[in-house]
């Protein structure tokens, strides 16, 4: 029986006004933008501020995430994808830095800043902004996502009109110990188009970052993200994705360190024969809380979804996984797979998992599993018996444990960059 620690007490009840007041509203935008923000604000007011008692926040305390003061030591680790030939977008403390970034143009690509988009009539952006977030608010209200839509000034909007050869790389740099950032990105992948999005680095002392991604028929989006290693940050991220017919969405996240990280993936498959894979690997020590919350809705025939999440936890770290597959009545031939695993390197850490399946179609194959345990004793003995020192052997087994998730990345070079980052984390911990 674990001893319960006293929970952090918020100074007074959280209020929607309080949350909104933290983020200065920008100048007036285009009419569509104003109404999208107003609608998001109304949604948030309807939901109220996040509360600890909500089932949606069962394992992660939102009060800690949205507390009044924020302070996290700035850290500027190497960009995991720094060597990748990519279109580079740089954010400093959540603010787009045009000088440090490449110019906003590329083949088969329309790209602009969010603030440009919000004050212009870019029809594809106006059709997307806040729309997928709103669709993702049912059946579970996601207050912080609505907050993001209501106040965001920073972000990038991207439209891929063909196969985009160079990945688009978001590099986040954190310099200000008290930065509190809201970033909202849009990606529209047109029919048959393809794009790779890379993200790396700590965005700010606290950040609320959202993607809305619409993938049209036959389109594909690959997303690979490395969060960390800044430890004190508070992070809430949400990715809302809609998939059209025969489209592909593959997203992988590596998280190293972080006192509190909540990564949400809300995926709606609306076209037949589509494929959605989300995967994550995280490693944390001590005061580390990492939460993956995934909701995949199958609303089309013959689609495949996979969720692969691996968490390595030591010295009192906590890993959370809440993953749901909803298969609607007509979503026949759905192939859904979900695995979440915690590797506890000591007795102090914990892994909390809530896998859920809700299936209304009768011809589907859905499987889910969740495990929690220590290092594989046989594997450890095997490596030791070859003379590999114990620490190296343990690290190799941690890499092995995470690898099922890493292999979800399609590009093998990117896989290797992620493995190197895991290895360098292990060297330091």
């Amino acid at each position, binding site marked *: 029986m674990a001893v319960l620690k006293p929970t952090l007490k918020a100074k007074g009840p959280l209020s929607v006004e309080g949350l909104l007041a933290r983020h200065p509203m920008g100048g007036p935008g285009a009419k569509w933008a104003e109404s999208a923000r107003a609608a998001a604000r109304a949604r948030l007011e309807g939901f109220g501020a996040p509360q600890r008692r909500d089932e949606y926040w069962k394992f992660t305390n939102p009060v800690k995430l949205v507390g009044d003061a924020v302070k996290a030591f700035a850290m500027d680790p190497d960009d995991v994808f720094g060597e990748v030939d990519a279109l580079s977008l740089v954010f400093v403390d959540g603010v787009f830095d045009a000088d440090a970034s490449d110019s906003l143009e590329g083949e088969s690509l329309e790209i602009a800043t969010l603030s440009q988009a919000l004050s212009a009539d870019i029809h594809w952006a106006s059709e997307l902004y806040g729309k997928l977030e709103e669709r993702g608010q049912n059946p579970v209200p996601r207050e912080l996502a609505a907050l993001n839509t209501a106040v965001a000034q920073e972000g990038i909007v991207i439209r891929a009109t063909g196969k985009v050869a160079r990945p688009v790389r978001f590099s986040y740099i954190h310099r200000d110990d008290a930065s509190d950032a809201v970033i909202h990105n849009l990606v529209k992948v047109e029919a048959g188009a393809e794009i790779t999005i890379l993200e790396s680095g700590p965005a700010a002392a606290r950040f609320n970052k959202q993607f809305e991604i619409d993938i049209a028929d036959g389109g594909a989006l690959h997303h690979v993200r490395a969060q960390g290693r800044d430890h004190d940050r508070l992070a809430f991220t949400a990715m809302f994705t809609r998939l059209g017919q025969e489209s592909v969405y593959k997203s992988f996240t590596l998280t190293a360190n972080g006192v509190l990280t909540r990564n949400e993936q809300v995926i709606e498959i609306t076209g037949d024969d589509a494929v959605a894979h989300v995967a994550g690997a995280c490693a944390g020590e001590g005061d580390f809380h990492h939460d993956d919350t995934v909701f995949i809705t199958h609303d089309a025939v013959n689609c495949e979804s996979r969720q692969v999440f691996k968490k390595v936890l030591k010295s009192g770290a906590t890993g959370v996984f809440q993953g749901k597959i909803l298969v609607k009545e007509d979503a026949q031939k759905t192939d859904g797979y979900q695995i979440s695993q915690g590797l506890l390197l000591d007795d102090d850490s914990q892994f909390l998992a809530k896998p859920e399946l809700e299936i209304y179609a009768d011809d589907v194959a859905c499987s889910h599993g969740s495990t929690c345990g220590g290092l*594989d*004793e*046989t*594997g450890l*003995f*095997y*490596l*030791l*018996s*070859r*003379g*590999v*020192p*114990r620490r*190296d*052997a343990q690290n*190799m*087994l941690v*890499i*092995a444990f*995470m*690898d*099922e998730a*890493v*292999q979800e990345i399609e590009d093998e070079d990117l896989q290797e960059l992620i*493995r190197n980052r895991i290895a360098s984390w292990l060297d330091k911990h």
Partner: protein
Amino acid sequence: MLEIKNLHVKLGEEDKVILKGVNLTVEAGKVHAIMGPNGSGKSTLSYVLSGREGYEVTDGSASLAGEELLEMEPEERAALGLFLAFQYPVEIPGVGNMTFLRTAVNAQRKARGEEELSAAEFLKVVREKAKSLKIDADMLKRPVNVGFSGGEKKRNEILQMAMLEPKMCILDETDSGLDVDAMKLVSEGVNALRDEGRGFLVITHYQRLLDHIKPDVVHIMADGRIVKTGGPELALEVENNGYADILAEVA
């Protein structure tokens, strides 16, 4: 080379006694085989010698090249020159075979106070040794044992043995799961390592492996003891008559 005296071992968690006084000496340059029915303690002996957790030595001793083994960590025993070829080699996804081999080789060299091999030196040696075991570049690049067939895994064990150049090799049912061709290849790999300065302990159920790796001495193990020792003809006797006759004879 390897000296085991009156070794008594029980399972750590249960009170089950598995080895009940094993005495065995393997000289340098010799190949000893241990045969015996299931549950006689053969695999336990190999695990206890190489330092797997979960066993408790209640009496007796074991030494390698004059050094007491049983108090050492598994990695220290490896650096001293003990090698166990596993019956079921373990898969390590995400860790390349080469990386693993180089880590192991250099860690052992370091532990012995020898200079580590450079990447180039290592590559040269490993390619040469892999070739004779028909291990191609792809198998070297792939993660350790992941997606390997039964035969490939055993060849990979022998490659590790060849790279680590141990003083004392224990082969735990290396023939299990191998077809005739794979067994031949693995045996050739082992025979190539036979050397004046190296001892072998080959654990097997079947005579057929011993057709390829010819032993100098054959031991029969039953109920945690070595009950009979003889020459290669003893293995043939087992093959023809099973263990029943021998066990009845010594009972």
